[in-house]
């Protein structure tokens, strides 16, 4: 009996004793932001869908099956693989939320499909995603890192790259349609996914930084090299994936700029500096506006807005303000 492995019983989680208040902050953010695809009136996009050409429809469905695969990986493998590495019980709880929301995202694409597409089109697109070499290559590169026994911090690097970089070759398209006033309800749903992925990338990147700070310089350098090498590998795959998808519609170069911009943001989530210089990372303003509609700021410094214009944001209720 002495040699029998002990069953490890976790301690009951006490949210009133926090080791890291970021856990509660992110838990609150994620739970408040919870949503389901039924909330979005996707069927309003049916007339708009009918205006797309056959190729545009096929492209859109393929892009969404590619995104479904990434969400599936993050739901079933990615987020669960981070749980044993959690340094606080609250972090583990946050990861369960992240895992579940990835399932909601994966499920949402099927809601879009059932609203807009025929069964034949849907099945064809899923077959395409099963066989597309670039999509399969990026999935494999990430899954290899998630494998049990691998370095916990490398797993976080891969996870942040999936959350904050790999999705964006796909997210580009609904933002593009939205900027042309097409599939605007679908775009609303995608923006909810983008918002969630932003919190995920931020949080996992933050947890990476905590672990990284405790390492000696040699180990830090090793991890940084690993991160940049993995980014180069994924970027190479993404370039090919982008060309295959977007060449025919003439958007490849625009999408690549979007990839650079998001690669830089993914690296910033890990606390690293940007990789791509500003001149190749300046995203088409129409796409930026589609990402964050109604958030345009009067920029006093650049003189693009009127001088001394006061912000028009709806003042949020907050009892902490004294004035």
């Amino acid at each position: 009996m002495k040699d029998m492995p002990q069953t490890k019983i976790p301690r009951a989680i006490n949210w009133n004793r926090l080791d890291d208040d970021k856990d509660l902050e992110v838990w609150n953010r994620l739970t408040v932001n919870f949503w389901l695809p039924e909330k979005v009136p996707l069927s309003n996009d049916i007339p708009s869908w009918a205006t797309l050409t056959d190729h545009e429809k096929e492209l859109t469905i393929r892009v969404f099956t590619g995104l479904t695969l990434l969400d599936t990986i993050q739901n079933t493998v990615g987020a669960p693989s981070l749980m044993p590495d959690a340094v606080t019980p609250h972090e583990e709880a946050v990861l369960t939320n992240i895992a579940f929301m990835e399932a909601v995202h994966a499920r949402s694409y099927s809601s879009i499909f059932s609203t807009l597409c025929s069964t034949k089109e849907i099945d064809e697109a899923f077959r395409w995603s099963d066989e597309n070499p670039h999509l399969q290559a990026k999935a494999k590169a990430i899954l290899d890192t998630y494998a049990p026994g691998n370095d916990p911090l490398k797993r976080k690097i891969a996870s942040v790259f999936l959350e904050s970089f790999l999705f964006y070759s796909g997210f580009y398209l609904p933002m593009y349609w939205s900027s042309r006033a097409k599939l605007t309800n679908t775009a609303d749903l995608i923006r909810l996914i983008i918002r969630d992925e932003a919190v995920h990338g931020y949080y996992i990147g933050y947890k990476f930084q905590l672990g990284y700070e405790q390492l000696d310089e040699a180990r830090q350098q090793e991890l940084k090299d690993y991160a940049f090498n993995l980014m180069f590998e994924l970027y190479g795959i993404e370039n090919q994936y982008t060309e295959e998808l977007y060449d025919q519609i003439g958007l490849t170069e625009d999408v690549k700029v979007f990839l650079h911009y998001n690669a830089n943001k993914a690296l910033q989530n890990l606390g690293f500096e940007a990789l791509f210089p500003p001149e190749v990372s300046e995203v088409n303003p129409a796409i930026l506006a589609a990402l964050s509609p109604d958030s345009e700021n009067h920029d006093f410094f650049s003189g693009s807005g009127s001088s001394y214009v006061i912000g028009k944001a709806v003042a949020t209720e907050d009892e902490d303000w004294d004035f």
Partner: protein
Amino acid sequence: MGAELALIYYSSKSGNTERFVTRLGWPAARIPIDADAPLPDQGDPFVLICPTYADGEGRGAVPKQVIRFLNDPARREKLVGVIGTGNRNFGATYAMSGRIIADKCKVPLLCSFELAGTDTDIARIREGLTKLGKTLCSTAT
């Protein structure tokens, strides 16, 4: 001649704004994360850089410590402008804290940037702060 325009910022433990300010190379004081820690004194006119932590409805955009800092009328009087930061992926609430503070404190929103900023952001903000500092100097005398 007045003193150089000061910079005050908030940065949570994830450190994006802290990294931005370090690269900017402008003398700056940080509003502490710890609610019990003393807040920086501010005798000179200053610009505030504030990240955004809003939920989907915009609640909680401005960190409580920044609100605590701005609740003092003497500090507010020295605030000449605000820079909001955030992530465009949060849609309509992107960099919303800057807009809220500008509205509340009746100061201009100077600009906004994402996460730890780009080299372009560093250049335009350095230039903007220099210009604004000169403008304030000439109007003060």
